[in-house]
């Protein structure tokens, strides 16, 4: 079905096999199989409504919240089937964090935003340990210098780009293995976008990162692997350089050259 370039034998953190997603009767994702490596940034590209966000949300079971959504096939995180009844969804989401399209900080203080995850999971034994986690997370998200003097200010008072980095800090405070990013820059200006992209490059290696993006330039800049989705199917998956310079599929080539999208 889908065309796979010859990839190096990657250490698959997430392995999806024959995944289909249904919204009621409608099939949104059709038989997608993909291996997502731990050391790469993987980009999902494709035209609007092609199912790339839907597929992303199956990876931490955020689709569970949508009534009528149903997933078939198998998705394994480090070998464990995440749709198995033995997998606790709370545990899963602590291991697979997510950053959304629109920055959505809690209407609470900056500190509380970052501290929330570690607190509910009981990751810190003391207040000082929690302070450390907050500082480390904000530093990794490149936000510490901008907010260290106003940690008690509301998270919603920050600029859009800062809010999105706060959301990233909130996600990495739980120390997930994978971070899913659903068009994280689509609501941001170019300067804020550049900062987020830098951040993604820095985070690579510590976390497996999967990013959905509308912008092919962005995919080309930040990712090492790219999957092209069209009409619910994964058309092509391979090294980013190969996909952009030497696509195997006609549809991929048409999309990349701007024929549709």
């Amino acid at each position, binding site marked *: 079905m889908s065309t796979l370039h010859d990839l190096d034998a990657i250490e698959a953190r997430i392995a999806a096999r024959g995944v289909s997603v249904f919204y009621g009767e409608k099939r949104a994702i059709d038989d997608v199989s993909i291996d997502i490596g731990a050391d790469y940034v993987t980009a999902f590209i494709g035209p609007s409504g092609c199912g790339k966000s839907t597929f992303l949300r199956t990876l*931490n079971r*955020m689709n569970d*919240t949508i*009534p009528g959504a149903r997933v078939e096939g198998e998705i394994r995180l480090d070998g464990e089937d995440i749709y198995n009844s033995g997998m606790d969804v*709370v*545990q*899963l*989401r*602590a291991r697979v*964090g*997510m950053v*959304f399209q*629109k920055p*959505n*900080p*809690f*209407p609470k203080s900056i500190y509380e935003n970052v501290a*929330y*995850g570690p607190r*509910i*999971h009981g990751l810190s034994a003391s207040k000082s340990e929690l302070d450390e986690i907050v500082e480390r997370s904000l530093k990794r998200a490149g936000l510490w210098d901008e907010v260290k003097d106003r940690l008690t200010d*509301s998270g*919603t008072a920050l600029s859009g780009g800062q809010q999105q980095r706060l*959301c990233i800090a*909130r*996600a990495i*405070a*739980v120390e997930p293995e994978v971070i899913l990013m659903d068009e994280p820059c689509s609501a941001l200006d170019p300067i804020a976008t550049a900062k987020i992209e830098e951040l993604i490059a820095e985070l690579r290696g510590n976390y497996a990162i999967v990013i959905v993006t509308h912008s092919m330039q962005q995919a080309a800049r930040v990712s090492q692997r790219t999957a092209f989705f069209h009409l619910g199917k994964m058309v092509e998956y391979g090294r980013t350089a190969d996909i952009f310079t030497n696509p195997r599929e006609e549809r991929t080539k048409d999309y990349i050259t701007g024929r549709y999208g």
Partner: protein
Amino acid sequence: MSNLSHQERAQRIAARLASRHASERRFRALGFLSVALSALVLAFLLVTMTANAVGGFKRAELRFQLDLAGGMLQIDPAQLKNDDPVRALEGAGLRDVVQFAAAKALGDKAAAELDSEAWREVARKIASNPALLNSSFDVSLAASDDLASGLRGDGAPQMVALAKDLAAQGKLATRFDPGFLSRSDATSPQAVGIWGALKGSMLTMLVTLALAFPIGVFAAIYLEEFAPRNRWTDLIEVSINNLAAVPSIIFGLLGLALFLGIFPYWRSAPLIGGMTLALMTMPVIVISGRNAIKAVPPSIRDAALAVGASRVQTVFHHVLPLALPGILTGTIIGMARALGETAPLLMIGMKAFVATPPEGFTSPSSVLPVQIFLWSDEINRGFVERTSAAIIVLLLFLLAMNAVAIYLRNRFENRW
């Protein structure tokens, strides 16, 4: 359209402009008029009520000296520490002593017009300050209804004459009556007070709030966040919406059949009244609560779920705090309606004549609106002013309740 020149197009637009502006002005004028009209009606209500109520907080009082020196009362001060000092003082003959002192100071005719229960006020005064037992002090006691009417100038001719005479000597006057706020219902407008009904209303509202708020909020949370969307939840939703529209007297019948059927000895009790009103208030809280919860942006839920919060944590840490201002607004509306409700309480017997303030949730009691309803039915003209005073007390209670709710709402109000 397309073959019009720019000029012609501008002219056509200009031709309609006048009528468009006129309609805008008309609408504004109408809006202003309706706001002004409601403000006027409200002002009229408040002014007439307050004007009447000023009289309601006063009463006609006879003033004379009461001399208890020299062992007029045969009573051991230790007896005043008993459960019922008023009865002890009655046993010692206080009633006659007061009557005798009044006759001596005011004359027999005036003394006969002393309110028959006036001695109780003296008794309470002595009970709270036993040092008065062997002293001489001034008292100002309620005059009878007849004499009070006489003082207003609308009583029997001989009463008018007597009142005029006493007033001229400074022995009879209308005085501010703080006791109105501490006494309970009585047969005479001179002796009534609002405390019994006020306390009854407070207790009833407490029960209503304690039942309707948690049940309503939890029902709203469950229906909005956890319940599956199916035919059953649709049915429940429609039922709750209908429940909010059911005439209140029907809730009274339900309370009568259900609660009084189970607890027959708690007739007229604030507990039963509060339970009945909670039935009425709960759907209002559920509906406003669901709307408030629905208005919380889904992105907040996503954010919480994505860091691994469970659904209950998501609701209680994030959704509920954001929805609370809206829920409180609905609660204010529901509680205000419950506070002013008369009909369902009549059905469960809260219209009884209750002369003592309720001791607890299960003792017989009245509530403010029912008290107002009962007094407004009285023939005695003295009750007219007392009714207005009671209405002012009800309005102030309502204002106080809303002020607390608005304070809480502003504290929880979040800006996102």
